């Protein structure tokens, strides 16, 4: 017998090609998914986010205030979504992540500019994701010299020369040193869990099907709900251990601040973990074999990384991509974990992110139970 035979090699090759051709769905996924993803992420991702939601607090009715606001909008980096006179309300909007910036124009701003008193113009930025707002902050700095140029004419022309007519004050909130790790490490908790939890359950039923034990399971009186909960529950423990390890590393290796309640974070984690396990289980009710289940998992993981606000600024994405992102549990959990750890917010502030998780969880579980066929038809 020869050590290497081209004919034998060809025999194996031919067999593999035949089998590849038979598994049409897998082949379609291998070809279709990359194209879909290229289009999706190619159009969705934007590293220079514009139209960031901004709240303004204007205490000065003068014309310079209006000019400043107009300049903000014209820069295309800021989109004014709210106006408030209460610093408390402004902070609440920042805490909840409703706005990325709050711009405060103090009382008598116009008068003080005219008098050459150099009043301060304050911008507060949510710096949990330092990258998201950096271009906008740079644009804001440029406003200082240009915003009032058209107004400072005639007797005020002198103000346009020399020192800027007002002082710019930037407050970086939540992450004053713009430490990227403070943003990435809590985000990784969301992403690592997405990867592992979905993987844990995506084979739950496909494995039973491939091993032939599925028929036995169906022949016994267990209901689809019992089977689903029974298969999901033990994995919650694995998710909890994994989360604990990640949080310990975050605390003691990366020194990530943990301002909020860890118990609250734990409760939110359990909701998040169960939602992800349910996704994996739902995949296993749909996939015909293990390879398909794995592909579905990858198909779910990529948008969770790219569209959730983990890798790229959420606010920078076009509206349709944000809607897609809002469906994903990772998007909401990212806001929860960053909010609790870096902003120290409580249940009231995270609730807008918790109920979408619960809704997602119930929807996915309903799909899984309905997809579970009680007969072999």
């Amino acid at each position, binding site marked *: 017998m020869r050590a290497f035979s081209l004919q034998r090699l060809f025999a194996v090759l031919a067999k593999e090609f035949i089998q590849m051709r038979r598994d049409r769905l897998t082949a379609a996924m291998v070809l279709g998914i990359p194209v879909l993803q290229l289009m999706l992420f190619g159009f969705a991702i934007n590293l220079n986010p514009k139209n960031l939601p901004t709240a303004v607090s204007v205490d000065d009715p003068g014309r310079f205030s209006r000019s400043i606001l107009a300049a903000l909008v014209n820069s295309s980096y800021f989109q004014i979504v709210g106006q408030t006179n209460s610093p408390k309300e402004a902070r609440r909007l920042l805490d909840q992540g409703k706005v990325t910036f709050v711009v405060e124009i103090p009382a008598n701003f116009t008068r003080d500019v005219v008098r050459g008193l150099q009043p301060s113009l304050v911008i507060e930025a949510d710096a949990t994701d330092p990258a998201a707002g950096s271009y906008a902050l740079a644009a804001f700095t440029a406003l200082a010299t240009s915003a009032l140029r058209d107004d400072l004419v005639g007797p005020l022309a002198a103000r346009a020369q020399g020192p800027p007519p007002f002082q710019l004050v930037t407050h970086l909130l939540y992450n004053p040193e713009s430490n990227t790790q403070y943003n990435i490490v809590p985000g990784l908790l969301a992403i690592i869990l997405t990867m592992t939890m979905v993987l844990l359950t995506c084979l739950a039923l496909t494995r039973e099907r491939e091993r*032939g*034990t599925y028929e*036995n399971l169906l022949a*016994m009186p267990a209901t689809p709900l019992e089977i689903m909960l029974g298969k999901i529950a033990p994995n919650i423990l694995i998710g909890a251990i994994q989360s604990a390890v990640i949080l310990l590393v975050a605390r003691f290796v990366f020194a990530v601040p943990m301002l909020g309640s860890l118990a609250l974070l734990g409760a939110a984690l359990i909701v998040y973990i169960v939602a992800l396990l349910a996704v994996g289980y739902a995949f296993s009710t749909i996939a015909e074999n293990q390879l398909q289940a794995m592909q579905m998992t990858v198909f779910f993981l990529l948008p969770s990384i790219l569209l959730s606000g983990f890798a790229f600024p959420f606010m920078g994405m076009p509206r349709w991509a944000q809607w897609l992102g809002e469906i994903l549990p990772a998007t909401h959990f990212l806001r929860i974990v960053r909010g609790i750890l870096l902003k120290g917010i409580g249940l009231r502030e995270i609730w807008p992110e918790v109920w979408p998780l619960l809704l997602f969880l119930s929807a996915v579980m309903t799909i899984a139970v309905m997809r579970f066929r009680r*007969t*072999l*038809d």
Partner: protein
Amino acid sequence: MNGGLAIDVKGLTKRFGNKLAVDHVDIAVPEGEVWGFLGPNGSGKTTTIRMLCGLLRPDEGSGTCIGYDVRRQAEAIKRNVGYMTQRFSFWEDLSIRENLEFVARIYELTDRQRRVRAMLEQLGLERRQAQLAGELSGGWKQRMALGACMLHDPKLLLLDEPTAGVDPQARRDFWEQIHGLSARGLTVLVSTHYMDEAERCDRIVYILNGKLVAGGTVAEVIAQSRLITFIVSGENVRRFSDRLRAQPGVEYVAFFGAVLHVSGHDRNLLQRALQQIQEDEDVQVEEAQPSLEDVFIQLQEKAA
């Protein structure tokens, strides 16, 4: 129950796409009997059994299984029927005991520990209870599977080729178990390809291309077939089989042991064919009772 019938179905039909897998099958099995379900591969045995135990929804037909409607009461049937799948379908990464305990819990059995222990004892599995199911040989796997589907005290056992790939000793033990259970009032429907197993059944039904084509006791099935079989013996008789097969009236020739079975329905034609051979060669011919296998192979050949 239902006039003493454990299974009473009429017109059971199942289609897969355009293929008619089971075609208007009627089965009525009295309580406490052991029925053999025979037929070639792909003839619809497994599909019929799955419809009986609620794993497939019949497209047509109606009836009851241990008194529950096969169309509407699949869940009640599952609770009262023991179904043993053709392929071993217990968890190979669980031990024998763990498998049985799992089943006991799923059926919400009271007194779980005692029942599992009793079943292990009954099947002689105590010494192996800690062994992983995947490590067992075919015979032990089958024994464990029987134990697992008996655990909840079903009134009816549906066994789908339980002895395929099992050695003769284990097959014999298995049938002893089945007869023991039947003596205690359990009804059994068992599909098989083995003729000796068919002969251990009270009655048999034979399914071909989704239709029941024969049924009754073994003697009845043989008589119904009106098949005539001659046994041809002599030196090297096998070499005449092609020649005999070519003769008119010879429907089927098979080599059993060291003799040829030559079967057909027309006595005159058969005898004429055999006379020709006898004139040319030194062979002995005598008429014999056709065996069950003769009957089945002839049925199958006729259909093809």
